[in-house]
Protein backbone atom coordinates (compact mmCIF):
# COMPACT_ATOMS: atom_id res chain seq x y z
CA UNK A 1 0.00 0.00 0.00
CA UNK A 2 2.80 2.37 0.86
CA UNK A 3 5.22 1.09 -1.79
CA UNK A 4 7.53 3.78 -3.02
CA UNK A 5 6.70 6.34 -0.36
CA UNK A 6 10.03 7.73 0.81
CA UNK A 7 10.98 7.65 4.49
CA UNK A 8 11.20 11.41 4.68
CA UNK A 9 7.48 11.80 4.11
CA UNK A 10 6.64 9.63 7.08
CA UNK A 11 9.08 11.55 9.22
CA UNK A 12 7.62 14.89 8.12
CA UNK A 13 4.12 13.74 9.03
CA UNK A 14 5.36 12.46 12.40
CA UNK A 15 7.21 15.69 13.16
CA UNK A 16 4.22 17.83 12.27
CA UNK A 17 2.02 15.67 14.50
CA UNK A 18 4.53 15.88 17.33
CA UNK A 19 4.62 19.65 17.30
CA UNK A 20 0.85 19.97 16.88
CA UNK A 21 0.67 17.86 20.03
CA UNK A 22 3.13 20.08 21.91
CA UNK A 23 1.27 23.19 20.73
CA UNK A 24 -2.06 21.75 21.82
CA UNK A 25 -0.64 20.76 25.18
CA UNK A 26 0.51 24.30 25.84
CA UNK A 27 -2.42 26.24 24.39
CA UNK A 28 -5.59 24.26 25.03
CA UNK A 29 -7.64 24.96 28.13
CA UNK A 30 -9.76 21.84 28.38
CA UNK A 31 -8.13 18.90 30.17
CA UNK A 32 -9.58 16.34 27.76
CA UNK A 33 -8.18 18.25 24.77
CA UNK A 34 -4.79 18.34 26.48
CA UNK A 35 -5.02 14.58 26.86
CA UNK A 36 -5.79 14.31 23.14
CA UNK A 37 -2.70 16.39 22.37
CA UNK A 38 -0.64 13.96 24.43
CA UNK A 39 -2.04 11.08 22.38
CA UNK A 40 -0.99 12.93 19.23
CA UNK A 41 2.58 13.14 20.56
CA UNK A 42 2.66 9.43 21.35
CA UNK A 43 1.17 8.53 17.96
CA UNK A 44 3.77 10.58 16.15
CA UNK A 45 6.37 8.49 17.95
CA UNK A 46 4.57 5.37 16.78
CA UNK A 47 4.68 6.53 13.16
CA UNK A 48 8.39 7.14 13.53
CA UNK A 49 9.04 3.69 14.92
CA UNK A 50 6.97 1.86 12.34
CA UNK A 51 8.41 3.83 9.43
CA UNK A 52 11.98 3.25 10.56
CA UNK A 53 11.30 -0.42 11.11
CA UNK A 54 9.55 -1.02 7.79
CA UNK A 55 11.83 1.01 5.55
CA UNK A 56 15.26 0.86 7.17
CA UNK A 57 15.51 -2.25 9.35
CA UNK A 58 12.94 -4.78 8.09
CA UNK A 59 14.99 -7.76 9.35
CA UNK A 60 14.07 -7.23 13.03
CA UNK A 61 10.75 -6.26 14.58
CA UNK A 62 12.00 -4.03 17.40
CA UNK A 63 10.24 -0.91 16.19
CA UNK A 64 6.90 -2.70 15.85
CA UNK A 65 7.19 -4.13 19.36
CA UNK A 66 7.99 -0.70 20.71
CA UNK A 67 4.87 0.66 19.03
CA UNK A 68 2.67 -2.03 20.53
CA UNK A 69 3.97 -1.25 24.00
CA UNK A 70 3.63 2.50 23.52
CA UNK A 71 -0.03 2.04 22.54
CA UNK A 72 -0.67 -0.12 25.61
CA UNK A 73 1.05 2.28 27.99
CA UNK A 74 -0.74 5.26 26.43
CA UNK A 75 -4.04 3.55 27.19
CA UNK A 76 -3.02 3.06 30.83
CA UNK A 77 -1.91 6.66 31.06
CA UNK A 78 -5.17 7.92 29.57
CA UNK A 79 -7.24 5.84 31.97
CA UNK A 80 -5.45 7.21 35.03
CA UNK A 81 -5.60 10.75 33.68
CA UNK A 82 -9.33 10.48 32.94
CA UNK A 83 -9.99 9.08 36.39
CA UNK A 84 -8.30 12.11 37.95
CA UNK A 85 -10.10 14.46 35.55
CA UNK A 86 -13.46 12.95 36.58
CA UNK A 87 -12.53 13.58 40.20
CA UNK A 88 -11.70 17.19 39.38
CA UNK A 89 -15.01 17.52 37.56
CA UNK A 90 -16.83 16.31 40.66
CA UNK A 91 -15.05 18.87 42.82
CA UNK A 92 -15.29 21.86 40.49
CA UNK A 93 -18.04 20.97 37.96
CA UNK A 94 -15.48 22.16 35.43
CA UNK A 95 -12.39 20.82 33.66
CA UNK A 96 -10.86 24.08 32.55
CA UNK A 97 -7.17 24.36 33.41
CA UNK A 98 -7.59 28.05 34.19
CA UNK A 99 -9.71 27.01 37.16
CA UNK A 100 -7.20 24.50 38.55
CA UNK A 101 -4.96 27.18 39.98
CA UNK A 102 -5.28 26.81 43.72
CA UNK A 103 -1.52 26.39 44.18
CA UNK A 104 -0.37 28.65 41.38
CA UNK A 105 0.44 31.65 43.52
Amino acid at each position, binding site marked *: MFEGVPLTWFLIVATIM*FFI*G*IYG*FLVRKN*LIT*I*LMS*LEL*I*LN*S*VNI*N*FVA*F*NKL*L*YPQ*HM*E*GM*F*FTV*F*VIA*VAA*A*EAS*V*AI*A*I*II*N*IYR*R*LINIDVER*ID*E*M*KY
Partner: protein
Amino acid sequence: MLIMRHELLLVIITVILLLVEIFLPDNRKHTIILPSILLFFIVTVLGFIPGPTGELFGGMYATTPLILTMKNILNLGVLIIFIQSVNWLKKIENKGKIGEYYLILLSTLIGMDYMISSGDFLMFYLGLELATIPLATLAAWERFKEKSAEAGVKLIFTSALSSGILLYGISMIYGTTGSVYFREVMGAFNATPLQVLAFIFFFAGMAFKIAIVPFHLWIADVYEGSPINITSYLSVISKGAAVFILMIILYTVFYKIALLWRDVLYVTSILTMTIGNLFAIRQRNIKRFLAFSSIAQAGFILLGLIGQSQLGMTTVIYFVLVYIFSNLGAFGVAGIISNVTGKESIDDYDGLYRTNPLLSLTMMLALFSLAGIPPVAGFFGKFFLFTAAAQKGLYLLVIIGVLNTIISLYYYLLVVKAMFLNTSDQPIAYFRSDAYSRIGLLMCVAGIVIIGFASPVYEFILSLSHGLY
Protein backbone atom coordinates in the same frame (compact mmCIF):
# COMPACT_ATOMS: atom_id res chain seq x y z
CA MET B 1 15.98 -16.60 38.58
CA LEU B 2 18.29 -15.30 41.26
CA ILE B 3 19.53 -12.53 39.00
CA MET B 4 16.13 -10.86 39.12
CA ARG B 5 15.62 -11.51 42.82
CA HIS B 6 14.87 -7.92 43.82
CA GLU B 7 12.02 -7.62 41.37
CA LEU B 8 10.71 -11.14 41.93
CA LEU B 9 10.59 -10.70 45.70
CA LEU B 10 8.73 -7.42 45.28
CA VAL B 11 6.26 -9.00 42.86
CA ILE B 12 5.69 -11.86 45.28
CA ILE B 13 4.91 -9.63 48.25
CA THR B 14 2.75 -7.40 46.06
CA VAL B 15 0.67 -10.38 45.01
CA ILE B 16 0.44 -11.62 48.62
CA LEU B 17 -0.70 -8.20 49.82
CA LEU B 18 -3.21 -7.97 46.98
CA LEU B 19 -4.78 -11.30 47.95
CA VAL B 20 -4.81 -10.44 51.64
CA GLU B 21 -6.36 -7.06 50.86
CA ILE B 22 -9.12 -8.71 48.84
CA PHE B 23 -10.05 -11.34 51.40
CA LEU B 24 -9.78 -9.26 54.59
CA PRO B 25 -13.16 -8.17 55.95
CA ASP B 26 -13.72 -4.44 55.79
CA ASN B 27 -13.49 -3.80 59.53
CA ARG B 28 -10.07 -5.45 59.78
CA LYS B 29 -8.32 -3.76 56.83
CA HIS B 30 -6.01 -1.79 59.11
CA THR B 31 -4.34 -5.01 60.32
CA ILE B 32 -2.48 -5.17 57.00
CA ILE B 33 -0.05 -2.43 58.10
CA LEU B 34 2.31 -4.40 60.30
CA PRO B 35 2.55 -7.49 58.03
CA SER B 36 3.29 -5.30 55.01
CA ILE B 37 6.13 -3.54 56.78
CA LEU B 38 7.54 -6.83 58.06
CA LEU B 39 7.32 -8.43 54.62
CA PHE B 40 9.04 -5.46 53.06
CA PHE B 41 11.68 -5.50 55.78
CA ILE B 42 12.43 -9.13 54.92
CA VAL B 43 12.71 -8.22 51.22
CA THR B 44 15.09 -5.40 52.06
CA VAL B 45 17.29 -7.67 54.16
CA LEU B 46 17.26 -10.41 51.51
CA GLY B 47 18.29 -7.84 48.92
CA PHE B 48 21.55 -7.22 50.76
CA ILE B 49 22.63 -10.86 50.44
CA PRO B 50 25.12 -11.01 47.60
CA GLY B 51 24.04 -13.18 44.72
CA PRO B 52 24.66 -13.79 41.05
CA THR B 53 24.62 -10.93 38.57
CA GLY B 54 24.41 -10.95 34.81
CA GLU B 55 22.11 -10.53 31.87
CA LEU B 56 18.70 -11.99 31.06
CA PHE B 57 16.41 -12.02 28.02
CA GLY B 58 19.19 -11.44 25.51
CA GLY B 59 20.45 -8.31 27.22
CA MET B 60 17.10 -6.65 27.94
CA TYR B 61 17.74 -6.97 31.64
CA ALA B 62 21.16 -6.58 33.20
CA THR B 63 22.46 -6.22 36.71
CA THR B 64 25.88 -5.57 38.15
CA PRO B 65 26.85 -5.39 41.83
CA LEU B 66 26.61 -1.62 41.51
CA ILE B 67 23.03 -1.78 40.24
CA LEU B 68 22.16 -4.14 43.10
CA THR B 69 23.51 -1.52 45.49
CA MET B 70 21.31 1.13 43.89
CA LYS B 71 18.26 -1.09 44.37
CA ASN B 72 19.19 -1.74 47.99
CA ILE B 73 19.47 2.01 48.57
CA LEU B 74 15.99 2.52 47.12
CA ASN B 75 14.62 -0.36 49.24
CA LEU B 76 16.03 1.22 52.38
CA GLY B 77 14.39 4.53 51.56
CA VAL B 78 11.03 2.87 50.89
CA LEU B 79 11.27 0.96 54.16
CA ILE B 80 11.74 4.22 56.06
CA ILE B 81 8.79 5.76 54.21
CA PHE B 82 6.60 2.77 55.06
CA ILE B 83 7.44 3.12 58.72
CA GLN B 84 6.92 6.87 58.69
CA SER B 85 3.56 6.69 56.97
CA VAL B 86 1.86 4.35 59.47
CA ASN B 87 0.59 7.18 61.63
CA TRP B 88 -0.89 8.95 58.62
CA LEU B 89 -2.45 5.77 57.23
CA LYS B 90 -4.28 5.13 60.49
CA LYS B 91 -6.20 8.37 60.13
CA ILE B 92 -9.92 8.02 59.65
CA GLU B 93 -10.01 9.44 56.13
CA ASN B 94 -7.68 6.71 54.88
CA LYS B 95 -9.98 3.95 56.08
CA GLY B 96 -10.27 1.27 53.43
CA LYS B 97 -7.39 2.62 51.35
CA ILE B 98 -4.48 1.24 53.38
CA GLY B 99 -3.91 -1.83 51.25
CA GLU B 100 -3.97 0.24 48.07
CA TYR B 101 -1.24 2.47 49.42
CA TYR B 102 1.15 -0.43 49.79
CA LEU B 103 0.16 -2.02 46.48
CA ILE B 104 0.58 1.13 44.42
CA LEU B 105 3.80 2.12 46.13
CA LEU B 106 5.32 -1.33 45.71
CA SER B 107 4.36 -1.47 42.03
CA THR B 108 6.12 1.84 41.39
CA LEU B 109 9.15 0.45 43.18
CA ILE B 110 9.08 -2.62 40.90
CA GLY B 111 8.99 -0.25 37.94
CA MET B 112 12.01 1.63 39.23
CA ASP B 113 13.97 -1.58 39.77
CA TYR B 114 13.25 -2.72 36.23
CA MET B 115 14.13 0.71 34.94
CA ILE B 116 17.49 0.75 36.70
CA SER B 117 18.51 -2.66 35.43
CA SER B 118 17.16 -2.21 31.92
CA GLY B 119 19.46 -3.16 29.09
CA ASP B 120 17.40 -1.71 26.28
CA PHE B 121 15.15 1.25 25.70
CA LEU B 122 11.93 -0.79 25.65
CA MET B 123 12.54 -2.15 29.14
CA PHE B 124 13.63 1.28 30.26
CA TYR B 125 10.43 2.86 28.94
CA LEU B 126 8.16 0.24 30.50
CA GLY B 127 9.91 0.56 33.86
CA LEU B 128 9.69 4.33 33.69
CA GLU B 129 5.96 4.26 33.00
CA LEU B 130 5.31 1.67 35.69
CA ALA B 131 7.14 3.99 38.04
CA THR B 132 5.27 7.17 37.11
CA ILE B 133 1.64 6.34 36.21
CA PRO B 134 0.74 4.87 39.64
CA LEU B 135 2.47 7.83 41.28
CA ALA B 136 -0.22 10.11 39.85
CA THR B 137 -2.87 8.09 41.63
CA LEU B 138 -0.86 8.42 44.82
CA ALA B 139 -0.58 12.19 44.37
CA ALA B 140 -4.35 12.40 43.90
CA TRP B 141 -4.76 10.34 47.06
CA GLU B 142 -7.04 12.62 49.08
CA ARG B 143 -10.19 12.28 47.02
CA PHE B 144 -12.08 15.09 48.65
CA LYS B 145 -9.38 17.73 48.48
CA GLU B 146 -9.10 19.93 45.45
CA LYS B 147 -5.38 20.41 45.98
CA SER B 148 -4.67 16.71 45.82
CA ALA B 149 -6.57 16.26 42.55
CA GLU B 150 -4.73 19.26 41.17
CA ALA B 151 -1.39 17.69 42.11
CA GLY B 152 -2.42 14.43 40.48
CA VAL B 153 -3.46 16.01 37.21
CA LYS B 154 -0.30 18.09 37.06
CA LEU B 155 1.86 15.05 37.72
CA ILE B 156 0.19 12.80 35.15
CA PHE B 157 0.21 15.45 32.42
CA THR B 158 3.80 16.54 32.90
CA SER B 159 5.02 12.98 33.14
CA ALA B 160 3.07 11.97 30.05
CA LEU B 161 4.44 14.94 28.11
CA SER B 162 7.97 14.18 29.25
CA SER B 163 7.70 10.53 28.26
CA GLY B 164 6.37 11.62 24.88
CA ILE B 165 9.40 13.84 24.34
CA LEU B 166 11.68 11.08 25.60
CA LEU B 167 10.10 8.56 23.25
CA TYR B 168 10.55 10.88 20.30
CA GLY B 169 14.25 10.96 21.11
CA ILE B 170 14.35 7.18 21.44
CA SER B 171 12.61 6.77 18.07
CA MET B 172 15.31 8.87 16.44
CA ILE B 173 18.01 6.83 18.14
CA TYR B 174 16.33 3.70 16.79
CA GLY B 175 16.14 5.21 13.33
CA THR B 176 19.82 6.09 13.21
CA THR B 177 21.28 3.00 14.87
CA GLY B 178 18.78 0.26 14.01
CA SER B 179 18.53 -1.10 17.54
CA VAL B 180 17.09 -0.30 20.92
CA TYR B 181 19.59 -2.39 22.91
CA PHE B 182 21.98 -0.22 24.88
CA ARG B 183 25.01 -2.21 23.81
CA GLU B 184 24.24 -2.16 20.10
CA VAL B 185 23.22 1.48 20.19
CA MET B 186 26.51 2.30 21.88
CA GLY B 187 28.41 0.44 19.15
CA ALA B 188 26.52 2.08 16.28
CA PHE B 189 26.51 5.56 17.77
CA ASN B 190 28.51 7.99 15.66
CA ALA B 191 27.28 11.42 16.76
CA THR B 192 25.44 12.43 13.60
CA PRO B 193 23.33 15.60 13.94
CA LEU B 194 20.15 13.53 14.18
CA GLN B 195 21.61 11.54 17.05
CA VAL B 196 22.60 14.73 18.83
CA LEU B 197 19.03 15.96 18.38
CA ALA B 198 17.80 12.62 19.72
CA PHE B 199 19.99 13.08 22.77
CA ILE B 200 18.53 16.55 23.37
CA PHE B 201 14.99 15.16 23.25
CA PHE B 202 15.97 12.29 25.51
CA PHE B 203 17.63 14.59 28.01
CA ALA B 204 14.67 16.97 28.04
CA GLY B 205 12.40 14.05 28.87
CA MET B 206 14.62 12.92 31.72
CA ALA B 207 15.02 16.50 32.93
CA PHE B 208 11.26 16.63 33.46
CA LYS B 209 11.43 13.53 35.63
CA ILE B 210 14.33 14.73 37.77
CA ALA B 211 12.97 18.31 37.79
CA ILE B 212 15.99 20.04 36.32
CA VAL B 213 15.58 23.75 35.52
CA PRO B 214 13.97 24.75 33.02
CA PHE B 215 11.67 21.74 33.42
CA HIS B 216 11.06 22.10 37.15
CA LEU B 217 7.87 24.10 37.45
CA TRP B 218 5.52 21.19 38.08
CA ILE B 219 7.39 19.99 41.13
CA ALA B 220 6.40 22.61 43.71
CA ASP B 221 2.68 22.28 43.00
CA VAL B 222 2.73 18.50 42.97
CA TYR B 223 4.71 18.39 46.21
CA GLU B 224 2.40 20.83 47.95
CA GLY B 225 -0.80 19.13 46.86
CA SER B 226 0.12 15.51 47.64
CA PRO B 227 -0.03 14.06 51.14
CA ILE B 228 3.31 14.55 52.84
CA ASN B 229 4.39 10.90 52.91
CA ILE B 230 3.85 10.65 49.18
CA THR B 231 5.71 13.91 48.66
CA SER B 232 8.70 12.40 50.42
CA TYR B 233 8.46 9.33 48.21
CA LEU B 234 8.33 11.52 45.10
CA SER B 235 11.24 13.69 46.14
CA VAL B 236 13.54 10.93 47.30
CA ILE B 237 12.93 7.52 45.75
CA SER B 238 11.45 8.57 42.43
CA LYS B 239 14.10 11.20 41.89
CA GLY B 240 16.91 8.91 43.04
CA ALA B 241 15.90 6.16 40.62
CA ALA B 242 15.68 8.63 37.73
CA VAL B 243 19.16 9.95 38.57
CA PHE B 244 20.57 6.42 38.64
CA ILE B 245 19.20 5.48 35.23
CA LEU B 246 20.18 8.83 33.73
CA MET B 247 23.72 8.20 34.95
CA ILE B 248 23.80 4.68 33.51
CA ILE B 249 22.49 5.81 30.12
CA LEU B 250 24.76 8.84 29.90
CA TYR B 251 27.80 6.79 30.78
CA THR B 252 27.05 3.90 28.44
CA VAL B 253 24.76 4.80 25.53
CA PHE B 254 25.83 8.41 25.11
CA TYR B 255 29.45 7.71 25.93
CA LYS B 256 30.64 8.92 22.53
CA ILE B 257 29.12 12.38 22.85
CA ALA B 258 30.39 12.90 26.40
CA LEU B 259 31.85 16.27 25.44
CA LEU B 260 28.43 17.45 24.34
CA TRP B 261 26.42 16.23 27.31
CA ARG B 262 29.04 17.54 29.67
CA ASP B 263 28.31 21.03 28.34
CA VAL B 264 24.57 20.47 28.64
CA LEU B 265 24.95 19.27 32.22
CA TYR B 266 27.30 22.17 32.99
CA VAL B 267 24.70 24.78 32.07
CA THR B 268 21.69 22.97 33.55
CA SER B 269 23.57 22.24 36.75
CA ILE B 270 24.36 25.92 37.35
CA LEU B 271 20.78 26.94 36.48
CA THR B 272 19.23 24.23 38.63
CA MET B 273 21.31 24.99 41.70
CA THR B 274 20.88 28.74 41.49
CA ILE B 275 17.18 28.91 40.63
CA GLY B 276 16.27 26.16 43.09
CA ASN B 277 18.09 27.98 45.87
CA LEU B 278 16.78 31.44 45.07
CA PHE B 279 13.18 30.26 44.90
CA ALA B 280 13.51 28.25 48.10
CA ILE B 281 14.27 31.42 50.07
CA ARG B 282 10.82 32.89 49.59
CA GLN B 283 8.76 29.77 50.33
CA ARG B 284 6.67 29.74 53.50
CA ASN B 285 5.04 26.30 53.12
CA ILE B 286 7.37 23.57 54.38
CA LYS B 287 6.51 21.22 51.49
CA ARG B 288 7.14 23.86 48.83
CA PHE B 289 10.32 24.79 50.66
CA LEU B 290 11.56 21.21 50.59
CA ALA B 291 10.48 20.95 46.93
CA PHE B 292 12.72 23.81 45.88
CA SER B 293 15.50 22.57 48.11
CA SER B 294 15.24 19.22 46.33
CA ILE B 295 15.54 21.02 42.98
CA ALA B 296 18.75 22.59 44.23
CA GLN B 297 20.00 19.18 45.40
CA ALA B 298 19.32 17.81 41.89
CA GLY B 299 21.65 20.54 40.61
CA PHE B 300 24.39 19.28 42.89
CA ILE B 301 23.80 15.74 41.66
CA LEU B 302 24.26 16.92 38.07
CA LEU B 303 27.53 18.50 39.13
CA GLY B 304 28.70 15.06 40.21
CA LEU B 305 27.50 13.46 36.98
CA ILE B 306 29.80 15.73 34.99
CA GLY B 307 32.85 14.31 36.73
CA GLN B 308 32.49 11.28 34.50
CA SER B 309 34.76 8.80 36.22
CA GLN B 310 34.75 6.09 38.83
CA LEU B 311 34.83 8.84 41.43
CA GLY B 312 31.92 10.64 39.77
CA MET B 313 29.72 7.57 39.84
CA THR B 314 30.58 6.77 43.42
CA THR B 315 29.88 10.28 44.59
CA VAL B 316 26.52 10.44 42.85
CA ILE B 317 25.35 7.18 44.42
CA TYR B 318 26.76 8.16 47.81
CA PHE B 319 25.11 11.56 47.58
CA VAL B 320 21.75 10.01 46.73
CA LEU B 321 22.10 7.69 49.73
CA VAL B 322 22.84 10.60 52.05
CA TYR B 323 20.10 12.66 50.43
CA ILE B 324 17.56 9.87 51.07
CA PHE B 325 18.33 9.82 54.78
CA SER B 326 18.48 13.58 55.26
CA ASN B 327 15.43 14.44 53.17
CA LEU B 328 13.39 11.66 54.76
CA GLY B 329 14.40 13.02 58.16
CA ALA B 330 13.15 16.49 57.26
CA PHE B 331 9.97 15.16 55.65
CA GLY B 332 9.45 12.81 58.60
CA VAL B 333 9.39 15.66 61.10
CA ALA B 334 7.21 17.79 58.83
CA GLY B 335 4.88 14.82 58.34
CA ILE B 336 4.50 14.15 62.06
CA ILE B 337 3.74 17.80 62.76
CA SER B 338 1.31 17.97 59.84
CA ASN B 339 -0.43 14.80 61.02
CA VAL B 340 -0.83 15.88 64.61
CA THR B 341 -1.59 19.56 64.17
CA GLY B 342 -2.35 20.01 60.47
CA LYS B 343 0.17 22.87 60.27
CA GLU B 344 2.46 23.05 57.25
CA SER B 345 3.78 26.59 57.32
CA ILE B 346 7.33 27.44 58.40
CA ASP B 347 5.96 30.25 60.57
CA ASP B 348 4.18 27.65 62.67
CA TYR B 349 7.55 26.17 63.60
CA ASP B 350 8.39 29.19 65.78
CA GLY B 351 9.44 28.08 69.23
CA LEU B 352 9.22 24.39 68.40
CA TYR B 353 12.36 23.65 70.41
CA ARG B 354 10.71 24.70 73.66
CA THR B 355 7.78 22.37 73.21
CA ASN B 356 9.21 19.46 71.20
CA PRO B 357 12.99 19.45 71.61
CA LEU B 358 13.66 16.01 70.09
CA LEU B 359 11.71 16.74 66.92
CA SER B 360 13.52 20.06 66.52
CA LEU B 361 16.89 18.41 66.98
CA THR B 362 16.08 15.79 64.36
CA MET B 363 14.89 18.46 61.95
CA MET B 364 18.06 20.46 62.60
CA LEU B 365 20.27 17.47 61.95
CA ALA B 366 18.44 16.68 58.71
CA LEU B 367 18.63 20.28 57.50
CA PHE B 368 22.33 20.49 58.42
CA SER B 369 22.89 17.35 56.42
CA LEU B 370 21.02 18.80 53.45
CA ALA B 371 23.04 21.99 53.70
CA GLY B 372 26.33 20.13 54.14
CA ILE B 373 27.63 21.16 57.56
CA PRO B 374 30.74 19.16 58.51
CA PRO B 375 30.05 16.50 61.13
CA VAL B 376 27.03 14.99 59.37
CA ALA B 377 26.86 12.90 56.22
CA GLY B 378 25.71 15.67 53.90
CA PHE B 379 29.06 17.39 54.16
CA PHE B 380 30.94 14.42 52.78
CA GLY B 381 28.38 13.94 50.06
CA LYS B 382 28.84 17.50 48.83
CA PHE B 383 32.58 17.42 49.38
CA PHE B 384 33.03 14.35 47.20
CA LEU B 385 30.78 15.82 44.51
CA PHE B 386 32.93 18.92 44.35
CA THR B 387 36.08 16.76 44.27
CA ALA B 388 34.72 14.78 41.34
CA ALA B 389 33.97 17.96 39.41
CA ALA B 390 37.29 19.57 40.34
CA GLN B 391 39.13 16.50 39.06
CA LYS B 392 37.86 17.37 35.59
CA GLY B 393 39.20 20.90 36.01
CA LEU B 394 35.78 22.51 36.29
CA TYR B 395 36.86 25.03 38.89
CA LEU B 396 34.33 27.69 37.90
CA LEU B 397 31.50 25.20 38.34
CA VAL B 398 32.84 24.16 41.73
CA ILE B 399 33.04 27.78 42.86
CA ILE B 400 29.43 28.38 41.78
CA GLY B 401 28.47 25.20 43.59
CA VAL B 402 30.14 26.35 46.80
CA LEU B 403 28.45 29.75 46.55
CA ASN B 404 25.13 27.96 46.15
CA THR B 405 25.86 25.90 49.23
CA ILE B 406 26.19 29.15 51.15
CA ILE B 407 22.85 30.42 49.82
CA SER B 408 21.23 27.13 50.75
CA LEU B 409 22.75 27.39 54.24
CA TYR B 410 20.92 30.69 54.63
CA TYR B 411 17.46 29.30 54.07
CA TYR B 412 18.02 26.03 55.91
CA LEU B 413 19.18 28.06 58.89
CA LEU B 414 16.06 30.21 58.64
CA VAL B 415 14.03 27.14 59.57
CA VAL B 416 16.49 26.24 62.33
CA LYS B 417 16.29 29.81 63.62
CA ALA B 418 12.50 29.65 63.63
CA MET B 419 12.59 26.49 65.71
CA PHE B 420 15.29 27.46 68.18
CA LEU B 421 15.40 31.25 68.51
CA ASN B 422 12.03 32.65 67.52
CA THR B 423 9.33 32.78 70.12
CA SER B 424 5.67 32.48 69.42
CA ASP B 425 2.48 33.14 71.29
CA GLN B 426 0.97 29.89 70.11
CA PRO B 427 3.74 27.38 69.55
CA ILE B 428 2.86 23.85 68.51
CA ALA B 429 1.90 22.17 71.75
CA TYR B 430 3.89 19.28 73.20
CA PHE B 431 2.87 15.87 71.89
CA ARG B 432 4.24 12.36 72.02
CA SER B 433 4.72 10.82 68.63
CA ASP B 434 3.90 7.15 68.22
CA ALA B 435 6.42 4.32 68.07
CA TYR B 436 6.44 3.98 64.29
CA SER B 437 7.30 7.62 63.68
CA ARG B 438 10.03 7.38 66.28
CA ILE B 439 11.58 4.32 64.64
CA GLY B 440 11.40 6.02 61.24
CA LEU B 441 13.12 9.16 62.49
CA LEU B 442 15.67 7.13 64.42
CA MET B 443 16.62 5.29 61.24
CA CYS B 444 17.09 8.61 59.44
CA VAL B 445 19.21 10.07 62.23
CA ALA B 446 21.27 6.90 62.43
CA GLY B 447 21.80 7.02 58.68
CA ILE B 448 22.83 10.66 58.70
CA VAL B 449 25.29 10.21 61.56
CA ILE B 450 26.70 6.77 60.71
CA ILE B 451 27.28 7.44 57.02
CA GLY B 452 28.98 10.67 58.00
CA PHE B 453 31.42 9.01 60.35
CA ALA B 454 31.94 5.62 58.75
CA SER B 455 33.98 5.52 55.59
CA PRO B 456 33.29 1.82 54.74
CA VAL B 457 29.99 2.79 53.08
CA TYR B 458 31.77 5.11 50.70
CA GLU B 459 34.59 2.68 50.07
CA PHE B 460 32.15 -0.14 49.41
CA ILE B 461 30.41 1.88 46.69
CA LEU B 462 33.79 2.97 45.31
CA SER B 463 34.95 -0.63 45.05
CA LEU B 464 31.87 -1.51 42.97
CA SER B 465 31.69 1.41 40.59
CA HIS B 466 33.81 0.42 37.67
CA GLY B 467 31.65 -1.91 35.63
CA LEU B 468 29.66 0.49 33.51
CA TYR B 469 32.13 1.37 30.80
